[in-house]
Protein backbone atom coordinates (compact mmCIF):
# COMPACT_ATOMS: atom_id res chain seq x y z
CA UNK A 1 0.00 0.00 0.00
CA UNK A 2 1.05 3.55 -0.62
CA UNK A 3 2.03 5.70 2.26
CA UNK A 4 -0.59 8.38 2.85
CA UNK A 5 0.82 11.72 3.90
CA UNK A 6 0.29 13.06 7.40
CA UNK A 7 0.97 16.63 6.39
CA UNK A 8 -2.01 18.47 4.99
CA UNK A 9 -1.73 21.17 2.34
CA UNK A 10 -2.87 24.76 2.38
CA UNK A 11 -6.23 25.95 3.64
CA UNK A 12 -7.67 28.68 1.44
CA UNK A 13 -10.43 31.18 2.25
CA UNK A 14 -11.69 33.16 -0.69
CA UNK A 15 -14.29 35.80 -0.02
CA UNK A 16 -16.16 38.25 -2.26
CA UNK A 17 -13.45 37.93 -4.89
CA UNK A 18 -13.93 39.90 -8.12
CA UNK A 19 -11.72 40.73 -11.08
CA UNK A 20 -12.36 43.37 -13.68
CA UNK A 21 -10.32 43.80 -16.82
CA UNK A 22 -9.74 46.97 -18.77
CA UNK A 23 -9.77 50.55 -17.57
CA UNK A 24 -11.87 53.57 -18.50
CA UNK A 25 -15.04 53.10 -20.49
CA UNK A 26 -14.91 49.46 -21.45
CA UNK A 27 -14.75 47.21 -18.43
CA UNK A 28 -15.11 43.48 -18.44
CA UNK A 29 -16.13 41.68 -15.29
CA UNK A 30 -14.29 38.35 -15.45
CA UNK A 31 -15.33 36.90 -12.10
CA UNK A 32 -17.51 38.21 -9.32
CA UNK A 33 -18.70 37.25 -5.86
CA UNK A 34 -16.50 34.18 -5.51
CA UNK A 35 -16.74 32.73 -2.01
CA UNK A 36 -14.99 29.45 -1.38
CA UNK A 37 -13.31 27.62 1.49
CA UNK A 38 -10.79 25.04 0.44
CA UNK A 39 -9.85 22.45 3.04
CA UNK A 40 -6.26 21.49 3.77
CA UNK A 41 -5.20 18.67 1.50
CA UNK A 42 -8.36 18.79 -0.58
CA UNK A 43 -8.46 17.92 -4.27
CA UNK A 44 -10.77 20.57 -5.64
CA UNK A 45 -11.84 20.66 -9.27
CA UNK A 46 -13.34 23.66 -10.99
CA UNK A 47 -15.39 23.18 -14.15
CA UNK A 48 -17.16 25.70 -16.27
CA UNK A 49 -17.73 26.76 -19.85
CA UNK A 50 -14.91 28.64 -21.56
CA UNK A 51 -14.87 32.26 -20.56
CA UNK A 52 -16.19 31.57 -17.06
CA UNK A 53 -13.07 33.01 -15.49
CA UNK A 54 -11.76 29.79 -14.00
CA UNK A 55 -8.26 30.50 -15.28
CA UNK A 56 -8.50 34.05 -13.93
CA UNK A 57 -9.30 32.65 -10.50
CA UNK A 58 -6.32 30.33 -10.68
CA UNK A 59 -3.97 33.09 -11.84
CA UNK A 60 -5.02 35.24 -8.89
CA UNK A 61 -4.34 32.33 -6.53
CA UNK A 62 -0.95 31.88 -8.20
CA UNK A 63 -0.06 35.53 -7.70
CA UNK A 64 0.12 36.16 -11.45
CA UNK A 65 -2.86 38.54 -11.43
CA UNK A 66 -4.37 40.74 -8.76
CA UNK A 67 -8.04 40.79 -7.86
CA UNK A 68 -10.00 44.02 -8.19
CA UNK A 69 -11.74 43.41 -4.87
CA UNK A 70 -12.22 40.72 -2.24
CA UNK A 71 -9.70 38.75 -0.24
CA UNK A 72 -7.80 35.50 -0.36
CA UNK A 73 -6.37 34.04 2.79
CA UNK A 74 -3.93 31.18 2.31
CA UNK A 75 -2.55 29.24 5.24
CA UNK A 76 0.54 27.39 4.03
CA UNK A 77 2.37 27.01 7.31
CA UNK A 78 4.91 24.20 7.43
CA UNK A 79 5.52 24.14 3.67
CA UNK A 80 8.48 25.37 1.69
CA UNK A 81 6.46 27.45 -0.76
CA UNK A 82 2.86 28.52 -0.94
CA UNK A 83 1.97 27.32 -4.42
CA UNK A 84 3.30 25.98 -7.70
CA UNK A 85 1.44 26.07 -10.95
CA UNK A 86 1.23 23.50 -13.73
CA UNK A 87 0.30 25.17 -16.99
CA UNK A 88 -1.72 23.76 -19.85
CA UNK A 89 1.14 23.96 -22.35
CA UNK A 90 3.70 22.72 -19.82
CA UNK A 91 5.57 26.04 -19.91
CA UNK A 92 8.89 24.25 -19.83
CA UNK A 93 11.78 26.47 -20.86
CA UNK A 94 12.94 25.10 -24.23
CA UNK A 95 16.53 26.18 -23.53
CA UNK A 96 16.82 24.13 -20.36
CA UNK A 97 17.27 20.39 -20.02
CA UNK A 98 14.63 18.38 -18.18
CA UNK A 99 16.88 18.46 -15.13
CA UNK A 100 17.31 22.24 -15.21
CA UNK A 101 13.61 22.79 -15.80
CA UNK A 102 12.65 20.64 -12.83
CA UNK A 103 15.22 22.39 -10.65
CA UNK A 104 14.15 25.89 -11.71
CA UNK A 105 12.03 26.64 -8.64
CA UNK A 106 14.87 25.49 -6.38
CA UNK A 107 17.50 27.54 -8.20
CA UNK A 108 15.37 30.71 -7.96
CA UNK A 109 15.01 30.18 -4.22
CA UNK A 110 18.71 29.66 -3.64
CA UNK A 111 18.56 26.00 -2.60
CA UNK A 112 22.20 24.76 -2.44
CA UNK A 113 23.24 22.85 -5.57
CA UNK A 114 23.87 19.50 -3.87
CA UNK A 115 20.51 19.49 -2.12
CA UNK A 116 18.75 20.72 -5.25
CA UNK A 117 20.19 17.99 -7.44
CA UNK A 118 19.18 15.31 -4.94
CA UNK A 119 15.64 16.66 -4.82
CA UNK A 120 15.45 16.93 -8.61
CA UNK A 121 16.62 13.36 -8.91
CA UNK A 122 13.94 12.20 -6.48
CA UNK A 123 11.24 14.15 -8.30
CA UNK A 124 12.30 12.73 -11.67
CA UNK A 125 12.16 9.24 -10.21
CA UNK A 126 8.66 9.95 -8.93
CA UNK A 127 7.40 10.73 -12.43
CA UNK A 128 9.56 8.10 -14.15
CA UNK A 129 11.80 10.43 -16.14
CA UNK A 130 15.21 9.62 -14.68
CA UNK A 131 16.51 8.42 -18.01
CA UNK A 132 15.46 11.62 -19.75
CA UNK A 133 17.04 14.15 -17.42
CA UNK A 134 19.52 15.46 -19.98
CA UNK A 135 16.99 15.78 -22.79
CA UNK A 136 15.49 19.03 -23.94
CA UNK A 137 11.71 19.57 -23.96
CA UNK A 138 11.47 19.40 -27.76
CA UNK A 139 12.88 15.85 -27.56
CA UNK A 140 10.02 14.69 -25.31
CA UNK A 141 6.47 13.58 -26.04
CA UNK A 142 3.56 15.69 -24.81
CA UNK A 143 2.96 13.34 -21.90
CA UNK A 144 6.59 13.43 -20.81
CA UNK A 145 6.62 17.21 -21.00
CA UNK A 146 3.60 17.40 -18.72
CA UNK A 147 5.26 14.93 -16.32
CA UNK A 148 8.31 17.16 -16.25
CA UNK A 149 6.09 20.14 -15.46
CA UNK A 150 4.49 18.18 -12.62
CA UNK A 151 7.90 17.24 -11.26
CA UNK A 152 8.93 20.89 -11.43
CA UNK A 153 5.91 21.79 -9.32
CA UNK A 154 6.30 18.97 -6.77
CA UNK A 155 10.02 19.45 -6.24
CA UNK A 156 9.52 22.88 -4.64
CA UNK A 157 7.29 21.26 -1.99
CA UNK A 158 4.35 23.65 -2.37
CA UNK A 159 1.40 23.66 0.04
CA UNK A 160 -0.90 23.97 -2.94
CA UNK A 161 -0.74 22.80 -6.53
CA UNK A 162 -2.53 24.95 -9.07
CA UNK A 163 -3.31 23.09 -12.27
CA UNK A 164 -4.77 24.75 -15.35
CA UNK A 165 -6.17 22.03 -17.60
CA UNK A 166 -2.84 20.25 -17.42
CA UNK A 167 -3.84 17.20 -19.46
CA UNK A 168 -6.20 18.84 -21.96
CA UNK A 169 -3.71 18.62 -24.81
CA UNK A 170 -2.87 14.94 -24.29
CA UNK A 171 -4.34 11.92 -26.02
CA UNK A 172 -6.87 9.83 -24.09
CA UNK A 173 -4.49 7.03 -23.02
CA UNK A 174 -1.82 9.38 -21.76
CA UNK A 175 -4.44 11.42 -19.95
CA UNK A 176 -5.69 8.41 -17.97
CA UNK A 177 -2.15 7.40 -17.02
CA UNK A 178 -1.21 10.88 -15.90
CA UNK A 179 -4.45 11.35 -13.98
CA UNK A 180 -3.73 8.18 -12.02
CA UNK A 181 -0.15 9.31 -11.38
CA UNK A 182 -1.31 12.69 -10.17
CA UNK A 183 -3.78 11.15 -7.73
CA UNK A 184 -1.05 8.83 -6.43
CA UNK A 185 1.33 11.78 -5.89
CA UNK A 186 -1.42 13.77 -4.22
CA UNK A 187 -2.23 10.91 -1.84
CA UNK A 188 1.44 10.51 -0.95
CA UNK A 189 2.10 14.19 -0.32
CA UNK A 190 -1.16 15.56 1.11
CA UNK A 191 -0.98 18.77 -0.88
CA UNK A 192 -4.01 20.85 -1.64
CA UNK A 193 -4.78 20.61 -5.35
CA UNK A 194 -6.87 23.09 -7.28
CA UNK A 195 -7.53 21.63 -10.68
CA UNK A 196 -9.17 23.51 -13.54
CA UNK A 197 -10.80 21.49 -16.28
CA UNK A 198 -13.55 21.79 -18.83
CA UNK A 199 -14.27 18.07 -18.52
CA UNK A 200 -16.99 17.11 -16.04
CA UNK A 201 -15.79 13.54 -16.17
CA UNK A 202 -12.26 14.50 -15.20
CA UNK A 203 -13.54 16.64 -12.32
CA UNK A 204 -15.61 13.75 -10.94
CA UNK A 205 -12.84 11.21 -11.35
CA UNK A 206 -10.20 13.26 -9.57
CA UNK A 207 -11.83 15.66 -7.16
CA UNK A 208 -13.15 15.58 -3.61
CA UNK A 209 -15.44 18.41 -4.57
CA UNK A 210 -16.35 19.95 -7.89
CA UNK A 211 -17.08 23.64 -8.24
CA UNK A 212 -19.31 24.47 -11.20
CA UNK A 213 -18.92 27.98 -12.53
CA UNK A 214 -21.13 30.08 -14.78
CA UNK A 215 -19.98 32.45 -17.47
CA UNK A 216 -20.13 36.22 -18.07
CA UNK A 217 -19.28 37.05 -15.39
CA UNK A 218 -17.85 33.95 -13.72
CA UNK A 219 -19.66 32.98 -10.55
CA UNK A 220 -19.90 29.82 -8.52
CA UNK A 221 -23.14 28.10 -9.38
CA UNK A 222 -22.82 24.82 -7.54
CA UNK A 223 -20.43 23.00 -5.31
CA UNK A 224 -20.78 19.23 -5.51
CA UNK A 225 -19.37 16.77 -3.00
CA UNK A 226 -18.06 13.93 -5.08
CA UNK A 227 -19.32 10.83 -3.25
CA UNK A 228 -16.93 8.20 -4.61
CA UNK A 229 -14.68 6.48 -2.07
CA UNK A 230 -10.89 6.43 -2.44
CA UNK A 231 -8.76 4.87 -3.62
CA UNK A 232 -10.66 5.14 -6.87
CA UNK A 233 -10.16 3.00 -9.91
CA UNK A 234 -10.52 5.58 -12.61
CA UNK A 235 -11.45 3.05 -15.31
CA UNK A 236 -14.19 1.16 -13.46
CA UNK A 237 -15.50 4.30 -11.79
CA UNK A 238 -16.16 6.06 -15.04
CA UNK A 239 -18.18 3.05 -16.21
CA UNK A 240 -20.48 2.94 -13.15
CA UNK A 241 -24.13 4.01 -13.22
CA UNK A 242 -23.78 6.36 -10.28
CA UNK A 243 -20.96 8.17 -12.03
CA UNK A 244 -23.05 8.54 -15.17
CA UNK A 245 -26.01 9.96 -13.24
CA UNK A 246 -23.87 12.56 -11.47
CA UNK A 247 -22.18 13.53 -14.69
CA UNK A 248 -25.56 14.08 -16.29
CA UNK A 249 -26.72 16.29 -13.40
CA UNK A 250 -23.73 18.54 -13.79
CA UNK A 251 -24.04 18.56 -17.52
CA UNK A 252 -27.64 19.86 -17.21
CA UNK A 253 -26.43 22.72 -15.03
CA UNK A 254 -23.67 23.55 -17.48
CA UNK A 255 -25.91 23.13 -20.51
CA UNK A 256 -28.24 25.86 -19.26
CA UNK A 257 -25.22 28.09 -18.84
CA UNK A 258 -23.80 27.36 -22.25
CA UNK A 259 -27.17 27.98 -23.90
CA UNK A 260 -27.68 31.20 -21.96
CA UNK A 261 -24.24 32.45 -22.90
CA UNK A 262 -24.93 31.61 -26.52
CA UNK A 263 -28.26 33.47 -26.52
CA UNK A 264 -26.56 36.48 -24.99
CA UNK A 265 -23.85 36.37 -27.61
CA UNK A 266 -26.36 36.11 -30.45
CA UNK A 267 -28.19 38.99 -28.77
Amino acid at each position, binding site marked *: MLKVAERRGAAVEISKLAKEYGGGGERLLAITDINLSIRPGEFLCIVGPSGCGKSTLLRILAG*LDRQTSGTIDINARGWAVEN*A*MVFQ*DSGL*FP*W*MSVEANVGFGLMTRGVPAAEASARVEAALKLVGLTKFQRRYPHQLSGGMRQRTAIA*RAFVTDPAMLLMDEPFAALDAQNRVILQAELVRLWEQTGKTVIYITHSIEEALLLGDRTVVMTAHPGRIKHIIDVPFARPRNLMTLSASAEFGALKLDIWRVLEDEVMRAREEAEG
Partner: protein
Amino acid sequence: MSGRSNKARERILYLISPIGLLAIWQVLLMLGFGDRRFIPTPSDIAVQFWAMTVSGELGWHVSVTLYRVAMGFVIGTVPGIAMGLFMAMFRPVRIFFDPLIAALFPIPKIALMPLLLLAFGFGDASKVALVAIAVFFPVIINTYAGASNIEKIYWDVAKNYGASQSIVFRRVVFFGALPMIFAGLRIALAVSFIVLVAAEFVATKSGIGYLIWNSWELLRVDVMFVGIVTIGILGLIVSAIFQEIERKVIPWKAE
Protein backbone atom coordinates in the same frame (compact mmCIF):
# COMPACT_ATOMS: atom_id res chain seq x y z
CA MET B 1 13.44 8.00 -53.10
CA SER B 2 15.92 7.73 -50.27
CA GLY B 3 16.94 10.72 -48.18
CA ARG B 4 20.60 10.13 -48.85
CA SER B 5 20.42 10.42 -52.63
CA ASN B 6 18.26 13.51 -52.16
CA LYS B 7 20.94 15.06 -49.99
CA ALA B 8 23.66 14.25 -52.51
CA ARG B 9 21.59 15.83 -55.24
CA GLU B 10 21.08 18.96 -53.17
CA ARG B 11 24.80 19.21 -52.57
CA ILE B 12 25.54 19.01 -56.29
CA LEU B 13 22.87 21.60 -56.98
CA TYR B 14 24.48 23.81 -54.36
CA LEU B 15 27.85 23.69 -56.12
CA ILE B 16 26.62 23.88 -59.68
CA SER B 17 25.80 27.60 -59.79
CA PRO B 18 29.15 29.03 -58.59
CA ILE B 19 31.26 26.52 -60.51
CA GLY B 20 29.16 26.97 -63.62
CA LEU B 21 29.48 30.73 -63.39
CA LEU B 22 33.27 30.53 -63.11
CA ALA B 23 33.47 28.13 -66.03
CA ILE B 24 31.40 30.38 -68.30
CA TRP B 25 33.51 33.37 -67.27
CA GLN B 26 36.75 31.53 -68.06
CA VAL B 27 35.57 30.19 -71.40
CA LEU B 28 34.15 33.49 -72.65
CA LEU B 29 37.41 35.34 -71.98
CA MET B 30 39.50 32.58 -73.52
CA LEU B 31 37.33 32.80 -76.63
CA GLY B 32 38.21 36.49 -76.90
CA PHE B 33 35.09 38.10 -75.49
CA GLY B 34 36.22 40.99 -73.29
CA ASP B 35 39.64 42.45 -72.65
CA ARG B 36 41.81 40.30 -70.38
CA ARG B 37 43.75 43.36 -69.19
CA PHE B 38 40.62 44.69 -67.52
CA ILE B 39 38.72 41.50 -66.85
CA PRO B 40 41.04 38.72 -65.68
CA THR B 41 39.97 35.09 -66.02
CA PRO B 42 39.32 33.03 -62.89
CA SER B 43 42.61 31.22 -63.56
CA ASP B 44 44.52 34.54 -63.70
CA ILE B 45 42.97 35.50 -60.37
CA ALA B 46 43.84 32.10 -58.89
CA VAL B 47 47.47 32.43 -59.96
CA GLN B 48 47.71 35.91 -58.47
CA PHE B 49 45.92 34.72 -55.32
CA TRP B 50 48.49 31.98 -54.88
CA ALA B 51 51.44 34.30 -55.49
CA MET B 52 50.19 36.81 -52.94
CA THR B 53 49.49 34.07 -50.42
CA VAL B 54 53.00 32.67 -50.74
CA SER B 55 54.61 36.11 -50.47
CA GLY B 56 52.64 36.77 -47.28
CA GLU B 57 51.22 40.01 -48.64
CA LEU B 58 47.64 38.71 -48.64
CA GLY B 59 48.01 37.21 -45.17
CA TRP B 60 49.11 40.56 -43.79
CA HIS B 61 46.09 42.42 -45.20
CA VAL B 62 43.73 39.66 -44.08
CA SER B 63 45.07 39.73 -40.55
CA VAL B 64 44.70 43.52 -40.32
CA THR B 65 41.12 43.40 -41.59
CA LEU B 66 40.16 40.48 -39.35
CA TYR B 67 41.64 42.21 -36.32
CA ARG B 68 39.58 45.34 -36.98
CA VAL B 69 36.42 43.33 -37.60
CA ALA B 70 36.88 41.24 -34.46
CA MET B 71 37.59 44.20 -32.19
CA GLY B 72 34.77 46.30 -33.57
CA PHE B 73 32.39 43.35 -33.52
CA VAL B 74 32.97 42.62 -29.83
CA ILE B 75 32.93 46.28 -28.77
CA GLY B 76 29.69 46.90 -30.68
CA THR B 77 27.69 43.72 -30.09
CA VAL B 78 28.16 43.22 -26.34
CA PRO B 79 26.53 46.52 -25.35
CA GLY B 80 23.99 46.00 -28.16
CA ILE B 81 22.84 42.71 -26.62
CA ALA B 82 22.81 44.08 -23.07
CA MET B 83 20.87 47.20 -23.98
CA GLY B 84 18.40 45.27 -26.15
CA LEU B 85 17.60 43.04 -23.18
CA PHE B 86 17.25 46.01 -20.83
CA MET B 87 14.92 47.69 -23.29
CA ALA B 88 12.67 44.64 -23.34
CA MET B 89 12.63 44.33 -19.55
CA PHE B 90 12.21 47.94 -18.50
CA ARG B 91 9.74 50.28 -20.12
CA PRO B 92 11.52 53.53 -19.16
CA VAL B 93 14.74 52.29 -20.79
CA ARG B 94 12.81 51.49 -23.94
CA ILE B 95 11.08 54.87 -24.03
CA PHE B 96 14.40 56.61 -23.48
CA PHE B 97 16.34 54.83 -26.23
CA ASP B 98 13.64 54.31 -28.88
CA PRO B 99 13.88 57.77 -30.53
CA LEU B 100 17.68 57.67 -30.43
CA ILE B 101 17.80 54.37 -32.26
CA ALA B 102 15.13 55.45 -34.73
CA ALA B 103 17.13 58.57 -35.55
CA LEU B 104 20.61 57.05 -35.68
CA PHE B 105 19.93 53.70 -37.35
CA PRO B 106 19.22 55.01 -40.87
CA ILE B 107 22.39 57.12 -41.01
CA PRO B 108 24.86 55.38 -43.34
CA LYS B 109 27.60 54.55 -40.89
CA ILE B 110 30.36 55.14 -43.43
CA ALA B 111 29.28 58.80 -43.36
CA LEU B 112 30.68 58.92 -39.84
CA MET B 113 34.19 58.04 -41.02
CA PRO B 114 35.51 61.63 -41.27
CA LEU B 115 34.19 62.30 -37.78
CA LEU B 116 35.85 59.17 -36.45
CA LEU B 117 39.14 60.08 -38.13
CA LEU B 118 39.01 63.38 -36.28
CA ALA B 119 38.26 61.63 -33.01
CA PHE B 120 40.52 58.57 -33.26
CA GLY B 121 43.14 59.40 -35.89
CA PHE B 122 44.30 57.34 -38.85
CA GLY B 123 45.19 54.19 -36.90
CA ASP B 124 43.13 51.08 -36.24
CA ALA B 125 40.99 52.80 -33.60
CA SER B 126 38.90 54.78 -36.08
CA LYS B 127 38.09 51.65 -38.14
CA VAL B 128 37.32 49.62 -35.05
CA ALA B 129 35.00 52.38 -33.84
CA LEU B 130 33.21 52.46 -37.18
CA VAL B 131 32.63 48.69 -37.14
CA ALA B 132 31.45 48.88 -33.52
CA ILE B 133 28.91 51.59 -34.32
CA ALA B 134 27.69 49.79 -37.43
CA VAL B 135 27.14 46.41 -35.72
CA PHE B 136 25.52 47.93 -32.64
CA PHE B 137 22.23 48.73 -34.39
CA PRO B 138 21.23 45.42 -35.96
CA VAL B 139 22.16 43.67 -32.71
CA ILE B 140 20.23 45.94 -30.36
CA ILE B 141 17.17 45.90 -32.61
CA ASN B 142 17.15 42.12 -33.01
CA THR B 143 17.84 41.49 -29.35
CA TYR B 144 15.04 43.78 -28.31
CA ALA B 145 12.63 42.16 -30.78
CA GLY B 146 13.60 38.68 -29.58
CA ALA B 147 13.33 39.52 -25.91
CA SER B 148 10.02 41.33 -26.17
CA ASN B 149 8.46 38.49 -28.16
CA ILE B 150 9.17 35.83 -25.56
CA GLU B 151 5.94 33.96 -24.93
CA LYS B 152 3.96 35.21 -21.98
CA ILE B 153 3.88 31.79 -20.36
CA TYR B 154 7.63 31.93 -19.67
CA TRP B 155 7.24 35.19 -17.75
CA ASP B 156 4.37 33.57 -15.83
CA VAL B 157 6.43 30.50 -14.98
CA ALA B 158 9.37 32.64 -13.87
CA LYS B 159 7.14 34.73 -11.63
CA ASN B 160 5.21 31.80 -10.20
CA TYR B 161 8.42 29.93 -9.42
CA GLY B 162 9.93 32.84 -7.55
CA ALA B 163 12.53 34.15 -10.02
CA SER B 164 14.16 37.47 -9.16
CA GLN B 165 14.70 40.19 -11.78
CA SER B 166 18.27 39.08 -12.17
CA ILE B 167 17.33 35.43 -12.74
CA VAL B 168 14.61 36.45 -15.19
CA PHE B 169 17.23 38.47 -17.04
CA ARG B 170 19.95 35.80 -17.14
CA ARG B 171 17.92 32.61 -17.40
CA VAL B 172 14.75 33.56 -19.23
CA VAL B 173 15.01 36.76 -21.25
CA PHE B 174 18.54 36.17 -22.49
CA PHE B 175 17.98 32.58 -23.60
CA GLY B 176 14.52 33.32 -24.93
CA ALA B 177 16.03 36.04 -27.10
CA LEU B 178 19.08 34.01 -28.12
CA PRO B 179 17.82 32.78 -31.52
CA MET B 180 17.01 36.36 -32.51
CA ILE B 181 20.29 37.60 -31.02
CA PHE B 182 22.11 35.20 -33.32
CA ALA B 183 20.11 36.43 -36.29
CA GLY B 184 21.25 39.94 -35.36
CA LEU B 185 24.87 38.84 -35.01
CA ARG B 186 24.83 37.31 -38.49
CA ILE B 187 23.58 40.55 -39.98
CA ALA B 188 26.17 42.42 -37.91
CA LEU B 189 28.89 40.19 -39.31
CA ALA B 190 28.04 41.05 -42.90
CA VAL B 191 27.65 44.72 -42.00
CA SER B 192 31.06 44.79 -40.33
CA PHE B 193 32.83 43.61 -43.49
CA ILE B 194 30.82 45.99 -45.65
CA VAL B 195 31.63 49.13 -43.67
CA LEU B 196 35.21 48.15 -42.91
CA VAL B 197 36.22 47.52 -46.52
CA ALA B 198 34.67 50.83 -47.48
CA ALA B 199 36.53 52.57 -44.65
CA GLU B 200 39.79 50.95 -45.72
CA PHE B 201 39.43 52.50 -49.20
CA VAL B 202 40.53 55.75 -47.59
CA ALA B 203 42.54 56.64 -44.57
CA THR B 204 44.75 53.57 -44.22
CA LYS B 205 47.66 51.72 -45.79
CA SER B 206 46.61 48.20 -44.87
CA GLY B 207 43.64 45.85 -44.97
CA ILE B 208 41.70 44.20 -47.77
CA GLY B 209 39.85 47.43 -48.57
CA TYR B 210 43.17 49.21 -49.06
CA LEU B 211 44.39 46.33 -51.25
CA ILE B 212 41.35 46.63 -53.50
CA TRP B 213 41.44 50.40 -53.78
CA ASN B 214 45.21 50.60 -54.25
CA SER B 215 45.22 47.99 -57.01
CA TRP B 216 42.41 49.84 -58.76
CA GLU B 217 44.56 53.01 -58.73
CA LEU B 218 47.47 51.01 -60.16
CA LEU B 219 45.12 49.32 -62.62
CA ARG B 220 46.09 45.88 -61.28
CA VAL B 221 42.64 44.42 -61.87
CA ASP B 222 43.76 40.86 -61.03
CA VAL B 223 44.95 42.00 -57.59
CA MET B 224 41.70 43.84 -57.12
CA PHE B 225 39.81 40.64 -57.81
CA VAL B 226 42.00 38.78 -55.33
CA GLY B 227 40.87 41.28 -52.71
CA ILE B 228 37.21 40.88 -53.63
CA VAL B 229 37.43 37.09 -53.65
CA THR B 230 39.23 37.14 -50.32
CA ILE B 231 36.39 39.10 -48.72
CA GLY B 232 33.94 36.53 -50.06
CA ILE B 233 36.00 33.65 -48.71
CA LEU B 234 36.39 35.32 -45.32
CA GLY B 235 32.65 35.90 -45.15
CA LEU B 236 31.98 32.27 -45.98
CA ILE B 237 34.42 30.92 -43.39
CA VAL B 238 33.34 33.23 -40.60
CA SER B 239 29.67 32.54 -41.24
CA ALA B 240 30.31 28.77 -41.23
CA ILE B 241 32.10 29.09 -37.89
CA PHE B 242 29.17 31.13 -36.66
CA GLN B 243 26.69 28.50 -37.70
CA GLU B 244 28.67 25.91 -35.76
CA ILE B 245 28.71 28.11 -32.66
CA GLU B 246 24.98 28.69 -33.01
CA ARG B 247 24.35 24.96 -33.13
CA LYS B 248 26.35 24.48 -29.94
CA VAL B 249 24.82 27.40 -28.08
CA ILE B 250 21.19 26.84 -29.12
CA PRO B 251 20.78 23.06 -28.88
CA TRP B 252 17.02 23.37 -28.35
CA LYS B 253 16.46 24.87 -31.77
CA ALA B 254 14.91 22.06 -33.77
CA GLU B 255 16.94 21.12 -36.83
